[in-house]
């Protein structure tokens, strides 16, 4: 094995390099997201048939499921970035976690809003203390706690590390919170199978949904790249590369 085969990895510890890479990737993510979301919306709003039970009401799934998925994926990303930052003392990983937190909170909020709008016609009420709604709400609180703790420190380095410890405590706790509310009360449907012989969803609905999931994930990636750029500029505001980049 070439002992330098990991050398490319070390460049990701350098803020100007990551700033450049993020700047290059962001428009690609954004355009791919636009295409994928356009395809998903066309498939979801025009070409797929209304649901036999829920009519056109089910179409909110094309926003609800991607948001809910991203709300959890983003917490996972934050926790991994926090662990990397704490273990290898990589400042950039902390910057990723801090840049991701408001995005995760927004997607969690979106999942809650779309879920309650969907709940009104289908369950007859905007809010029920159902397991998934409750754990999603607690996830929102965890995001807000992370953001509040991170902002409370004047020294960003301590704020990063305090937030990282909290994110890791949260990630250990999340499954416990999830299962505790599941055993406590559940009205939400279980998981739907998308594929295979026992698929519970028509292909004409699954394909646009997958396109939306892909598109919104790409949108998340584009936003994260831009936010990471801004975060790096703010953190390195006294460095010469940042002054040049901001000019």
């Amino acid at each position, binding site marked *: 094995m070439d002992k330098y085969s990991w050398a490319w990895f070390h460049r990701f510890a350098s803020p100007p390099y990551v700033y450049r890479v993020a700047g290059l990737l962001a428009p690609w993510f954004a355009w791919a997201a636009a295409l994928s979301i356009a395809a998903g919306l066309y498939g979801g709003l025009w070409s797929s048939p209304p649901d036999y039970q829920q009519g056109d009401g089910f179409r909110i799934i094309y926003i609800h499921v991607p948001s809910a998925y991203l709300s959890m994926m983003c917490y996972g990303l934050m926790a991994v970035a926090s662990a990397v930052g*704490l273990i290898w003392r990589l400042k950039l990983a902390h910057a990723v976690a801090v840049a991701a937190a408001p995005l995760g909170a927004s997607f969690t909020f979106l999942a809650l809003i779309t879920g309650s709008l969907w709940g009104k016609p289908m369950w007859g009420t905007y809010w029920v203390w159902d397991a998934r709604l409750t754990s999603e709400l607690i996830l929102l609180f965890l995001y807000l706690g992370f953001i*509040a703790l991170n902002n409370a420190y004047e020294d960003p380095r*301590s704020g990063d590390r305090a937030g990282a*410890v909290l994110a*890791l405590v949260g990630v250990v706790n999340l499954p416990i*919170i999830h299962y505790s*509310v599941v055993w406590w009360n559940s009205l939400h449907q279980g998981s739907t199978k998308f594929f295979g012989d026992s698929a519970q969803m028509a292909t004409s609905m699954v394909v646009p949904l997958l396109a939306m999931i892909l598109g919104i994930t790409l949108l998340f990636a584009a936003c994260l790249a831009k936010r990471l750029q801004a975060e790096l500029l703010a953190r390195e505001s006294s460095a010469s590369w940042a002054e040049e980049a901001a000019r």
Partner: protein
Amino acid sequence: MTRALLALAGRDLRLAYRRRGEVLTPAMFFILVTTLFPLGLSPQQELLRSIAPGVVWVAALLAGLIGQESLFKGDFEDGSLEQLLLSPVPLQIIALVRVLAHWIVTGLPIVILAPLMGLFMNYPSDAMGDLVSSLLLGTFTLSLLGAVGAALTVGLRQSGMLMPILVLPLAVPVLIFGAQAAAQAARGEDPAGALYLLAAMLVLGLTLAPFAIAAAIRVSLES
């Protein structure tokens, strides 16, 4: 190491004894919050009986948090926390002893007062034992979680409001199973399942929380 830990626990308990008034605040808070519910809702016996497990549990949770905020504050301000960090005893174990000593002074009075509050709330007296055991198992887990929050916010000026915001979402599972155990016992059902889950969470907390507390203390001391 045992001697150092005993000395530490002795110091914490002695300090608490010398500031008796301050130490009893959480217990007072617990009594007052519980008293507010019959006043705010209505004193009907059936209503009180049905909400008793939740009310006692929520009050115990909040009262425990009130006491936790100052867990490391004094030691942080006068520099003793740095000395503890330098000692050869691992910081995790020091943190665990500190939480235990603090729980004896603030958590245990709440557990002992719980049957009294149960009587106020018309909780069936033959289920009182299960209410107490649920609190006994749960409040120490809450103390461990609260200590993580207290250690994360010890160096901050606005820690008073921030710490509960960080800790309360994490405390949800303990509240759910604690109140569930108490409610099942009140209905005459077997609360063993919920109590076992509380015990499992206590074991998990005892194993993992000291590491999180130690890491959080290090972060706070470096800032």
